[in-house]
């Protein structure tokens, strides 16, 4: 563990020195395995927040109330501690710099993490592919990467944030729905590749909304987390 950055009261970014880790692509994940002194182990997958090829690599971990691994990663582990990691894993939910088509990113909560890896890559390589991010979050305190996203906004990146429970003064409260997808997201005519990441219910609702607007199913890539009960 090379460094730690708090993101929100319940999430922090872990900066990992991992010289043996193979080359990474934005959107991939790594597995982190914890081992207790008696040999008991627990492992989870975490999306990379860092750009393609960037070293050290970064993951942002949200503390889940009933979690086993995330509380340790958000509250206990310290700089200099060893972590057993494996990866990178995944080659589907990725953005590669060779992609020239417009890209629509839709994030729900901590689903922003792999999409941030894509945004950082897009900026780092000076890609001319138009990028848009639609980011749904419960309240302003739970926003990840706020200052950096503000800084990265420009001709190549548009960012819209919607707050589902509490919004800053003057902004409406509401989920990302059909109206937001129709007005804020790239249109089907622009043939964007669309990456949707978030809790299952969020991803299902967004994917259905995109289909109803006429987006082609083969252009929509999804990554989900969390139980549906």
């Amino acid at each position, binding site marked *: 563990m090379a460094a730690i950055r708090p993101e929100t009261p319940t999430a922090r970014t872990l900066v990992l020195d991992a010289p043996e880790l193979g080359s990474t692509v934005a959107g991939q994940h790594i597995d982190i*395995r914890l081992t207790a002194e008696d040999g008991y182990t627990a492992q989870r997958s975490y999306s990379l927040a860092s750009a393609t090829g960037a070293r050290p690599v970064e993951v942002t971990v949200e503390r889940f109330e009933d979690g086993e691994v995330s509380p340790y990663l958000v509250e206990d582990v310290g700089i200099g501690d060893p972590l057993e990691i494996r990866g990178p*894993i995944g080659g589907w939910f990725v953005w590669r710099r060779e992609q020239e088509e417009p890209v629509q990113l839709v994030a729900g909560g901590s689903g922003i993490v792999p999409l941030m890896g894509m945004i950082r890559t897009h900026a780092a390589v000076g890609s001319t592919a138009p990028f848009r991010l639609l980011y749904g979050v419960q309240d302003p305190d739970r926003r990840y990467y706020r200052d950096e996203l503000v800084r990265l906004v420009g001709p190549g990146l548009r960012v819209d944030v919607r707050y589902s429970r509490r919004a800053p003064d003057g902004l409406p409260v509401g989920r990302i729905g059909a109206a937001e997808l129709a007005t804020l997201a790239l249109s089907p005519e622009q043939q964007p590749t669309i990456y949707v990441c978030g809790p299952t219910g969020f991803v299902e609702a967004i994917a259905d909304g995109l289909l109803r607007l006429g987006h082609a199913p083969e252009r929509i890539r999804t990554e989900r987390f969390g139980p549906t009960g």
Partner: protein
Amino acid sequence: MAVFSPGFRGRRRSTNPALPPGQYEEHGFPVLSAGITPRIREDDWRFSLTTTSGESREWSWADMMALGPETISTDIHCVTSWSKFGTSWRGVSVDKFLDSVGADAPYVMAGCYGGYSTNLPMEDLRGGKAWVAFEFDGEPLRPEHGGPARLLVPHLYFWKSAKWVNSLTLMEHDRAGFWESLGYHMHGDPWLEERYR
């Protein structure tokens, strides 16, 4: 050699010996899929089996029901490290589809609505170990969980239990399916932790 995590004790939420290495017990039912959720009506559903010589046989929903569904109680294990104990399903054994065609081959590619695919050795599909499942917990299988019907091969990691399954293609030689071509294991035995290649 293991890297110890200073101060980590773990929650030990399950000491159940039915839990494969590196897995934890989940009480919900997480959803993992690579794209949108296809919505297929039972009336429109078709399932086909194609032999290595290219002969094909097709079943409708009613045809499948006529093969004789059974109730399955089983544990399931996802490669993202959750396991769920004692899940209850209804489905038709893959043996019944294979027997009605009488064909054999060492490998099988499962195909799906939406374009997903996954490869399996025949020996993992034969002998009452695999089903085409259409009910979960006494309810019709929901679309996000692979409904109207998915493959159920519970002794392998759950990505092998292809959602929205609509075909089995017999193969002389093993070929990688969707996740397998992206680095996941060709076999996927949770007890051997065959997660990645």
